């Protein structure tokens, strides 16, 4: 990991030296402006973006996971849910940005809505499939211990779906952050997208712009690592057999 970071920084530095253009400052120049920028508002913009992503992730998990769990168990509900999923899943959700802004205004709500929209379908599909994949024998054996529906949810379906939920979130947070960047780049005054496009790129402050890019990368990586850690902790059984 450390080696990969060093290699990327070296490559960046080499390109900066090679091109010698203001649009590509070296990593050292960026690291030098970073503390000043963090004190000047970059911390605030990062916090706003992090809040939007986390709120979107939490909302998507809380709405899609229960629906997926039930749809995986109920053929009738799945017959209603599946056609909607097939019709809406391939549509790039970013196209709903103008609509989201019309209906939800220009604050946090449309950004959180878009992230929710992207993650909702990802989580719904994997949870439905994982819930559907629980072997009947497993359910029988737990039912024979006296388990009621709530016990089955707690001891069988939820743990069976947890690795799938966390993998779906890990895979799709990258897309969610990309969409957030776009959504934050106009008609707003907070967030990393705004910082990068309006505050820095707009006034050709390239070193500062890269500080924003760095912050966005760290945000994405932190989320990815957090989900990875969460999976290792909550799904220890998946790793135990390896």
């Amino acid at each position: 990991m450390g080696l990969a970071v060093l290699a990327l920084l070296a490559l960046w530095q080499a390109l900066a030296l090679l091109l010698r253009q203001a649009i590509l400052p070296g990593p050292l120049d960026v690291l030098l402006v970073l503390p000043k920028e963090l004190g000047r508002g970059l911390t605030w913009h990062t916090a706003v973006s992090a809040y939007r992503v986390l709120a979107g992730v939490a909302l998507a998990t809380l709405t899609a996971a229960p629906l997926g769990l039930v749809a995986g168990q109920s053929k009738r509900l799945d017959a209603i849910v599946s056609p909607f999923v097939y019709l809406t899943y391939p549509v790039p959700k970013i196209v709903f940005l103008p609509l989201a802004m019309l209906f939800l205004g220009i604050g946090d709500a449309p950004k959180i809505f878009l992230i929710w929209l992207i993650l909702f379908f990802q989580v719904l599909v994997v949870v439905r499939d994982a819930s559907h994949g629980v072997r009947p024998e497993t359910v029988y054996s737990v039912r024979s211990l006296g388990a009621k529906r709530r016990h089955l949810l707690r001891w069988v379906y939820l743990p069976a779906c947890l690795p799938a939920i966390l993998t779906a979130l890990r895979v799709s947070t990258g897309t969610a952050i990309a969409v957030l960047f776009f959504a934050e780049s106009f008609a707003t005054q907070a967030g990393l997208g705004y910082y990068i496009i309006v505050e820095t790129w707009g006034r050709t402050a390239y070193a500062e712009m890269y500080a924003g890019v760095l912050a966005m990368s760290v945000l994405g990586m932190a989320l990815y690592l957090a989900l990875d850690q969460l999976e290792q902790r909550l799904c220890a059984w998946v790793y135990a057999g390896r």
Partner: protein
Amino acid sequence: MISLDGLEFGYAPGQSVFKDFSWRAEPGDAWAIIGPSGCGKTTLLYLLAGLRRPRGGRIAVAGEALAGPRAATGLILQDYGLLPWLTARDNVGLGLRIRGLPRRQEAEEVSTWLERLGLREAAERYPSQLSGGQRQRVAIARTLALEPDLLLMDEPFSSLDAISREDLQDLTLALGIEGQATTVLVTHNIEEAAYLARRILVLPRPPITRAEVIENPRGGRLEYRREAAYFAVCDQVRQAIERAQSPAALEAVT
């Protein structure tokens, strides 16, 4: 303990696995159910466990009509019975937790059963880290911890190697399960049926209306495997299965 009267069951309309089938098991009986593949052995076990509803007729366990899984019936399956996300300890304690036993009491009970089944060292491992034999020991411990009065087993040892299988068959007898509970063991293994059960029900191909019963009064003892009577019963069961393959021959017997 178990009474089936005029049992009717089928998976598809117009198709019957059981048709007006009746059978009785007395308290403390040790039964084995054997028969050709796909004859309905596991179906019968699931019906007795209350996991499937009959189309007609009556199933009563301990004098009460069966409406669903009952608390005092234990079920041990061949595979997939354990939850992969729980350690051996948590799997053993699952039934007790579902029943709302206080945590401390649950921990004591679980430790006793882990010790009794030689699983102390494996307590914190997940099922994927256990051998097949250890996994079945966990399944047995989990079920026996609930002190069932009826124990249903669906080919519990069939996926094990020969040594682990004999080891667990001996353990089943050594635990004295038969003395405490009525047991019904579904198996396709003639030797296992003859060794563990005192009465053997040989199911024919569906639709099943009647089945042959082989008495095996000396079965269910550790030393039985080396006795001449054991081999004679194995032979008797083998012949009964051959008869069960042909419905006409069964009519002649029963």
